[in-house]
């Protein structure tokens, strides 16, 4: 058996094995296994591109790294988050589903078949739906139901696209399709356009994004972090592979631009902080969609840089939000004051992650967005560029205004009871996008 194949199989099963580590009751064994999976994902870089049962190139590798890392962080965070707090679905089931959720995302990324990728995406819905209900409130049950109905309807729609692709090309193997000299046909155009709506439901493309704010705001914070940080990018990856078959650039770019406009407008009147971060995810995913659609070295690298930095930044934002929710019991922006006094570490992480997800320099997201804009400029998409610049500015103001208000306005109790693990994970997640930005600057400077 090929060693790379074996390595990829191990990355797939380790998230579930980490659950067995949890069951063994050996302290932190589950986290150690997940950490090993991150190390394996890094080691995988040596063997790319790999083509066989799995298909892993540089783009895939970046996504695998994101998924394994955010799974590790969420797992460690969840152990503290659920301490002394009754969980609705049973702790054992929660960690099992978390493992299966991660495995299904990794499967969707690694497998060399569009049909099985679709199966993987469907599996992410199944494994994540009950995780969303973990808080077991009336609202979370409603959010879960909306998630199941809207996303399942969308992914079912995407299956039509898969059928049409197979009908047109006679294969669903990605490596074969990418190696073909494809003559675009109207059938393929329809297939790719349907994929934009179908998989776009899970990516957060307007107007099929409506499950997104509900699910993100009602899920427990470690799961919100996984949704925002890696589930949506995984769906975006599958959409990108389909886009490569028959690039409908204008349609994809305009869909992205309209979605960014919508997200920015929604951000303007949000009253709950987790919901606000959910709309920020919609904005970032669609910027990445534009980058992938424009393509070329700038578009692709820009999108990957943005997605990688965003996954950690947004995870940090949701980890901080979870700590704040635990401490204040309030989901509303207006109900949270003076965090810098009561929760200094968490508020620092919240501020940093807020800067990270809004593309503030020198965070990695800033360079990602810059490269995407440059790619747009280089293909003379000036109207789209101007619109985007205006609306991401509006989104920047909305998010950072609300976050700074929560951190600095009013008087909070001095030194509230901050959980060191939760705040530590939030700080770590929010610092990583900064490091990515610095590394990018150093690497490009050396290369030049």
């Amino acid at each position: 058996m090929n060693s790379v194949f074996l390595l990829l199989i191990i990355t797939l099963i380790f998230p579930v094995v980490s659950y067995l580590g949890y069951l063994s009751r050996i302290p932190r064994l589950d986290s150690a296994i997940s950490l090993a999976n991150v190390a394996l994902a890094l080691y995988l870089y040596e063997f790319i591109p790999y083509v066989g049962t799995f298909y892993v190139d540089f783009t895939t590798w970046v996504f695998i790294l994101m998924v394994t890392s955010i799974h590790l962080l969420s797992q460690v965070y969840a152990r503290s988050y659920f301490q002394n707090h009754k969980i609705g679905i049973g702790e054992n089931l929660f960690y099992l589903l978390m493992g299966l959720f991660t495995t299904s995302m990794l499967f969707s990324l690694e497998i060399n078949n569009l049909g099985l990728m679709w199966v993987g995406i469907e599996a992410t819905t199944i494994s994540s739906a009950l995780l969303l209900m973990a808080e077991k409130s009336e609202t979370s049950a409603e959010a879960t139901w909306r998630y199941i109905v809207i996303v399942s309807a969308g992914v079912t729609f995407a299956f039509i696209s898969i059928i049409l692709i197979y009908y047109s090309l006679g294969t669903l193997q990605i490596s074969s399709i990418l190696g073909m000299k494809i003559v675009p046909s109207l059938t393929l155009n329809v297939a790719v356009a349907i994929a934009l709506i179908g998989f776009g439901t899970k990516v957060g493309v307007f107007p099929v994004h409506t499950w997104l704010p509900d699910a993100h705001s009602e899920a427990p914070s470690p799961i919100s972090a996984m949704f925002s940080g890696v589930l949506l990018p995984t769906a975006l990856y599958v959409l990108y592979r389909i886009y490569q078959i028959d690039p409908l650039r204008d349609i994809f770019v305009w869909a992205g631009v309209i979605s960014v406009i919508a997200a920015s407008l929604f951000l303007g009147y949000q009253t709950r902080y987790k919901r606000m971060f959910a709309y920020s995810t919609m904005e970032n995913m669609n910027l990445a969609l534009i980058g992938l659609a424009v393509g070329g070295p700038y578009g692709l690298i820009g999108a990957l840089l943005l997605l990688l930095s965003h996954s950690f930044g947004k995870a940090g934002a949701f980890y901080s939000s979870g700590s704040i929710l635990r401490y204040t019991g309030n989901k509303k922006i207006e109900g949270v004051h003076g965090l810098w006094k009561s929760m200094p570490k968490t508020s620092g992480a919240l501020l940093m992650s807020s800067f990270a997800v809004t593309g503030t320099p020198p965070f990695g997201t800033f360079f990602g967005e810059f490269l995407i804009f440059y790619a747009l400029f280089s293909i003379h998409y000036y109207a789209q560029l101007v619109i985007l610049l205006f609306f991401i500015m509006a989104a920047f103001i909305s998010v950072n205004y609300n976050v700074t208000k929560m951190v600095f306005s009013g008087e909070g109790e001095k030194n509230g009871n901050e959980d060191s693990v939760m705040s530590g994970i939030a700080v770590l997640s929010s610092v990583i996008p900064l490091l990515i930005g610095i590394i990018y600057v150093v690497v490009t400077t050396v290369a030049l």
Partner: protein
Amino acid sequence: MILTAEDLLIPISSLILITAFYMQGQEFIRPMIRGQFVQSILLAVVSVIMWYLTHDIDFIVLAVLIVVLRGFLITYFLEKGIRKDQVHLHEKHVSVAFPFLISLVFVLTAVLIVYSVVFSSIRIESITGNQGILVFPLALFFQGLFLIASRRTTYAQIMGYIEEENAIVLFAVFLLPIPLLIEASVFLDVLALVVISSVVVLEKFTHERVEELKG
């Protein structure tokens, strides 16, 4: 005149569509569940006819899966959720006649648009060589969507979702034989619907606007 197996596909597909409209017109939950059962069995019959036409054994596997999983297992779990004293369980404050008419208009319009815009420009041929037969899965798909949108109970929305899945299976069965994928989707549906939906049914029977989920 000798009736061929192919000739049976159109009347059976029409029956599938009729079950969909029957479910749309139902106020009570139990008849809807039984409508879904009949629809799934009819879908299995289509799969058997396709086996007869193509001699591809995968169609028989698919038919068996549909009967066991969709026909019996899902029906059993959904009916199990209704207590004995809830035989007349129904959706309150819902008018059935008006949405039923709207659904007819919606489905007709949607299918007409798809045919005039898409199928007039591209040539998609079914296995039987008859492009017109694809109208049934398309109409079923739109009807499933409308059922989800027009109802507020978890049961009715699950039924709409199953209709959509049935439409996709019918579409794939008519268009090209990729049964492995279809079987995978059927398997996943069962996991999703039986495991998750039964949990949600227990938690929430109807779905109204929630203040915290606005905006």
